[in-house]
């Protein structure tokens, strides 16, 4: 049965693994330079990365994101959908192998290959990017690179891509089984996977590890703040906690209760024409601080990186297992 699974899978596997190998070779060629640069420049590295390496940094992010999606669409979705479409499941399921074992072997091999491909990609990209990640976590001021915990970089580092790939693969298989047609199954797999990839960092990941909370004074020469949404909202930037991921914030009044930014602040900032002068802003901010207003910031500190990685890995692997159970049930009960 493993022979058959491999025989039907080897071409698709070869394509993906070849792409991963090409990426790994490119990263291996340029990675040591970057590591050397970090050794000499430290956190100042963020301003000295060559434009080629900057492109590679973003390419790496993109590839680690793409691998699970590609696996779900091109390995997962066709796995059973193509058999159902061409009728070969009649052949496969009438040999001396039970349907459950057939499914288990094909899912097992595919999931193992998915996790290997995504794991290797993430390993290569995480290794290559580690000087930049360390520079950012060490306090290197940059708008170009992301902290490891930032939602943009998080899913392209460490072990979570393996779990993403396993989930995407089984999701593709399950949708192929239900939809029964390859192309629609591929499209729905991509859409659903993208939805999950957006929903998890927005609503779930902030709660996967214990968050920290700090209160920032609102004052002209305190921590940097932004004034947004017509002066109805204040956003504090945690510059003294490098590598942190701010998950939510709230303005507190003098009594320490969550409160909206008072309208007096917007009135204070109003001008006849054009934006308010820097002095005027400082005065208004000082007034707001004098009224006792503070900004409360909830964040995941950089130290929580691995706790969050393992928690999210568990979450996605749990989802993959649940989908596997669904496939096993469906293939025995519902498929002709």
């Amino acid at each position, binding site marked *: *049965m493993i*022979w*058959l699974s491999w*025989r*039907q899978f080897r071409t698709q596997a070869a394509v993906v693994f070849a792409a991963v190998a090409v990426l790994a070779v490119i990263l291996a060629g340029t990675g040591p330079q970057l590591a050397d640069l970090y050794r000499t420049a430290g956190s100042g590295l963020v301003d000295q990365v060559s434009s080629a390496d900057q492109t590679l940094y973003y390419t790496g992010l993109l590839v680690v994101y793409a691998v699970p999606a590609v696996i779900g669409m091109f390995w997962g979705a066709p796995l059973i959908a193509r058999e159902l479409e*061409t*009728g*070969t499941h*009649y*052949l496969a*399921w*009438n*040999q*001396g*192998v*039970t*349907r459950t074992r057939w499914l288990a072997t094909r899912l097992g091999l595919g999931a193992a290959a998915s996790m290997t491909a995504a794991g290797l990609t993430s390993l290569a990209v995480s290794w290559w990017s580690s000087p930049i990640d360390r520079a950012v976590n060490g306090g290197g001021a940059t708008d170009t690179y992301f902290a490891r915990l930032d939602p943009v970089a998080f899913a392209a580092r460490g072990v979570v891509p393996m779990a993403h790939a396993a989930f995407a693969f089984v999701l593709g298989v399950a949708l192929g089984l239900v939809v029964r047609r390859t192309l629609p199954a591929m499209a729905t797999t991509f859409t659903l996977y993208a939805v999950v990839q957006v929903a998890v960092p927005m609503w779930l990941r902030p709660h996967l590890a214990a968050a920290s909370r700090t209160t920032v004074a609102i004052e002209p020469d305190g921590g940097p703040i932004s004034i947004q949404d017509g002066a109805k909202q204040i956003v504090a930037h945690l510059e003294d906690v490098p590598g942190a991921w701010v998950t939510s914030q709230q303005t507190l009044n003098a009594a320490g209760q969550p409160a909206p930014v008072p309208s007096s602040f917007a009135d204070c900032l109003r001008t006849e024409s054009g934006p308010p002068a820097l002095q005027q802003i400082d005065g208004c901010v000082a007034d707001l601080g004098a009224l006792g207003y503070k900004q409360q910031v909830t964040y995941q500190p950089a130290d929580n990186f691995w706790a969050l990685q393992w928690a999210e890995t568990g979450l996605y692997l749990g989802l993959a297992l649940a989908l596997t159970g669904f496939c096993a049930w469906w293939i025995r*009960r519902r498929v*002709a």
Partner: protein
Amino acid sequence: MSAVLRAQGLGKRYKQRWALQNCDLDIPSGRVVGLVGPNGAGKSTLLNLASGMLRPSAGTIEVCGGRPAEGVEQLAKVGFVAQDTPVYAALSVADHLDFGKRLNPNWDEGLARDRIRRLGLDPKQKAGKLSGGQRAQLALTLGIAKRPELLILDEPVAALDPLARREFMQDLMEAVAEHELSVVLSSHLVSDVERTCDYVIVLVDSRVQVAGDIDDLVACHHRLTGPRRDPATLPAGQHVITASHTERQTTLLVRTDTAVHDPSWTVTPLGLEDIVLAYMTRPADAVRDTRPALEVLR
């Protein structure tokens, strides 16, 4: 003799529509069974239930003494050549044999290789490049070489030209004789069944109309022609399958286990095709009335 296929109250429903209902069958082993009926009558549904590809919505079905597709042992007992004889287009003929060998406990490698050689198939050829007839032969080879007790074929020759059709059927019959298989095959052509089968099941509108040994069926169905009369006046034991009347004449197709002695009838024997067509064309509401009586035929 033990039953190779036994169904009781078997039914399969898709959403609102019954594809097969109230199906009672008891097919003895060692037979070559033809399942005939118009397209959409439920032939594929019955065969898919027998192979375990489908699960019944009602009733039970037992094949070779076990529940279809329940475990490796049961799977090994039943070979299934599905409609349109699907094969893996990207795999070669030799790959298919390899596939059969690795997946079947009783695989007969010598038989498989011998058949492929005799059929003149190139082992290196991709199955996707085979002609319809060759593909059907490859699928049949896989079905036979697993050495099942029962071989089920769903419209195996429907897509073949007349020559390929004849060759396939001949080849199938040789294999059946050689390996003492029981066979159930479906077809919408009575001629295919007449040539190869010794047992027939007629399925129309999701219901079994008649099932039995072909010789018995031919022996107990007659065409009666005589002066016009009401079919209800026939003696008990003579069941009217179809009736047609002209002004002065009545023609009946009846089933009876005893000889027809009434001298007013001219009795003519019937061929299988006449009988099958009669069951296919009779009004649907007649089905329920005669159904219990069909069991006499076994």
